[in-house]
C-alpha cells in the first residue's frame, strides 16, 4: 500500500513534470502566462489518435508526427499571434487574454473534428506489461513517462547551460531589450522556444493518452497542475518545475491517504496558496 502510494505520486509527478518543463521554458523567455500550453497536449494526443487510429499509420511514426505537430502549432501561435502583439508592445495581460482565446478556439476545433468523447490511444487498450517494485506496480507506459520526463529535463538543462542557444534564452530571460542590442535575434529564439516547449507539451499529451486517455478538455486541468508545479518550484526555472511537479504529485496523493479523494484538487490549490503567501518565488528561485 505504502510503496504503491509512493509510485502513484511519482507517476503523477512525472506527468506534471512534462507539463511544467515546457511551460517554464516558455515563461522564462517571454514572461507571460501561456494558457494555450495545456491545449497543445490535447493537440499532440489527438494527432496521434488521428494518424494511428484513423489513418492506421505506424504508432511510433504517429507519435513523432504528433510531437512535431504540437510544436508547429505552438510555433505558429507565436508567429501569428504573440509576436505581432509583442511588437506592438502589448502588455502581458493582453498576451494572456490572447492565449486564452487561442486555447478556447483550439479546444473547440478539436471537439468539432473529433467530438468530445473520451478516447484511448492504441497501446493502452491491450494488456500492458506490469512491473512490480517493492509490492507496488507500475505499467510500461508509466515507466516510459518517468524515463522520458527525466531525459527531457536533463537534455533541456544541458542545452540551456552549454549551448549558444541556451545562453541566448538566458539573455532574453534576463532582459530582452539588452539581448537584442547585443545582437541576439530574439524573435527567432523565442519562436524556437515556443516550438520546443509546445512539442514537450504535445509529448505529455501523447503519453497521458497512452496511460489514461484523451479528451479535448484535458488541457486546462493539466495546465493548472503544471502551473502550480512551476510556481511552487520557482517559475521560469527548469529544475524548479521538476521539483515542484514531484512535490505536487506527492502532496496530492499522500493528502488523500487519510481523507476522501474528492479533496485532491483542493489540496493542490492549498499547496499553491501556501507557497504564494510564504515563498512566492518558489523553491529554486533566489531572491
Amino acid at each position: 500500500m505504502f510503496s504503491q502510494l509512493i509510485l502513484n505520486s511519482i507517476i503523477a509527478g512525472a506527468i506534471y513534470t512534462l507539463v511544467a518543463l515546457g511551460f517554464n521554458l516558455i515563461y522564462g523567455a517571454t514572461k507571460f502566462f501561456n494558457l494555450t500550453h495545456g491545449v497543445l497536449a490535447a493537440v499532440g494526443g489527438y494527432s496521434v489518435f488521428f494518424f494511428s487510429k484513423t489513418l492506421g499509420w505506424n504508432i511510433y511514426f504517429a507519435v513523432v508526427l504528433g510531437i512535431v505537430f504540437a510544436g508547429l502549432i505552438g510555433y505558429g501561435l507565436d508567429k501569428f499571434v504573440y509576436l505581432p502583439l509583442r511588437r506592438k508592445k502589448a502588455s502581458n495581460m493582453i498576451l494572456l487574454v490572447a492565449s486564452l482565446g487561442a486555447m478556447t478556439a483550439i479546444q473547440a476545433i478539436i471537439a468539432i473534428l473529433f467530438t468530445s468523447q473520451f478516447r484511448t490511444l492504441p497501446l493502452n487498450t491491450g494488456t500492458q506489461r506490469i512491473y512490480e517494485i517493492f509490492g507496488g506496480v507500475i505499467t510500461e507506459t508509466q515507466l516510459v513517462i518517468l524515463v522520458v520526463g527525466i531525459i527531457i529535463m536533463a537534455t533541456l538543462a544541458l542545452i540551456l547551460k552549454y549551448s549558444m542557444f541556451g545562453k541566448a534564452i538566458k539573455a532574453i530571460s534576463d532582459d530582452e531589450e539588452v539581448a537584442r542590442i547585443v545582437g541576439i535575434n530574439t524573435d527567432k529564439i523565442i519562436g524556437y522556444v515556443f516550438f520546443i516547449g509546445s512539442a514537450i507539451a504535445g509529448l505529455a499529451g501523447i503519453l497521458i493518452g497512452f496511460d489514461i486517455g484523451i479528451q479535448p478538455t484535458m488541457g486546462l486541468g493539466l495546465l493548472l497542475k503544471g502551473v502550480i508545479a512551476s510556481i511552487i518550484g520557482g517559475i521560469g526555472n527548469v529544475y524548479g518545475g521538476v521539483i515542484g511537479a514531484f512535490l505536487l504529485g506527492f502532496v496530492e496523493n499522500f493528502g488523500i491517504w487519510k481523507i476522501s479523494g474528492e479533496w485532491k484538487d483542493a489540496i493542490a490549490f492549498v499547496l499553491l496558496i501556501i507557497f504564494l503567501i510564504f515563498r512566492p518565488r518558489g523553491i529554486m528561485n533566489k531572491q
Partner: protein
Amino acid sequence: MSKNTKVIIGVIVVAVIILIGYLIYKPGAPTTKESIKIGVILPFTGDLASYAEGVRNAINLATENSGYKDKIQIIAEDDHGCLPPDAISAAQKLINIDKTKAIIGSLCTGATLAIAPIAEQNKVIVIAPSATGKNLTNAGEYVFRTIASDADKSIAVAKYAYSKGLRKAALLFDSSQDALVSQRDDVKTTFTGLGGAIAIEESFISSDKDLRTQLNKVKSSDVDVIFIAALPDTVGLALKQARTLGVNTQFISSDTSGGTKPVIDIAGSSAEGLIFPFAITPSNKEYTDFINNYKEKYGTEPSAYAAEGYDAAAILIKAMFASNGTADSIKDQLFKIGKDYYGASGVISFDQNGDVQKPMVIKTIKDGQFVEIQ
C-alpha cells in the same frame, strides 16, 4: 493607409454587412404562427459533452421524423458541464427571451433540479432525458423524464450483491453528481439494512481521471465487493486502473452507466465481470428503427441517453402540436400521449409525478458483450 488597404477594408466591410443582413433575414427560419419553439439545455462543453452531442443528434432526428420539421425551432443552450448556475441562466434566457413553452434537459439531475423551480414558476414544461436522481420525482408538476429513477436500480444491485453472499463492501462514487451521490445512499441503506457492512467510502469528482490512490485505499481494506457510482468513462478508467493495480475484487455499478460502450472501449478486458443494472433492451420496432436511423444519419452508434432524448423530443413535439399552447394543456397532452407509448427507449407511461417505470434486469460483461444474469 495605401489605396490597396482601403479597397481591401472596403470589400471586407461590404461583405460583413451582406453577411449580417443575410443572417437577420435568413430565409427558412420558422416565423409562421403555428411554429413551436423547444428549448434544449445540455452540457455541450465540458466533460459530459459527448452525451450532450448524442442527445442533441437524437432530438434533431426526432424533429425530422415528426413530420413538422419546418415548424419546429430548436434553441439549444449550454450549461457547461451541468453547472447549475449556467443551467439556470440558460433556462431564464429560453423562458424570458425566446419564450419557449418547453425545455428538454438537462443531462444531470443537479442541473435539472436547478431549473425545475424556474420552470414551475413560469409554467414551462421540462423533460429530462437522462436525469436519474430520485429527488427529481417531486421537483414539480411540470417536470417529466423519460428515464427511470435510480432508486430501484441501486436497491436491486445492493440486494443482488447480498444474495450472492457478499458482505463487506467498498463504495467508490462521484461526489460531484447529485444522482450518483443519491445512488450511493440507496446502496448503503439497502446493503447495511440487509446486514452487510461498508468498510470504506472513497470519492472523486467527474473530472478526475486518476483514481489509483483511491483504489489503493480500497485494496488495503480487503472487501468482497466494490460498488461504483460513476459516469461511463470513469467506470471504464476505474476498472482498468484497478486491474492494473491488482485489485481483482468484484465491481458492481449502481448506475446503468456500467452497461455503456465507453466502459468496454476504455477498460477492454478489465471490464469483464462488471455487474450493473440495466433497463431491459427494448425489443419493439421503434427501438431498432431509432438505432438504424441514427447510424445512417450520424455514422456512429447512439451515445448513452440518446434514445431517451429521442423519446423526450418526440413525445413533446406531439404534445405541443396537440395542445392549445399553454403549459397546462401541453402537460395534459403529455399524460395522454405518454401512456403506453412505444418509444426508442422502450414503453413509456408517465405516472402522476412525470416519472417513468421501465423494466430492469441485472447484467454483466462477458467476452466484451453485455449479458443478462438475472
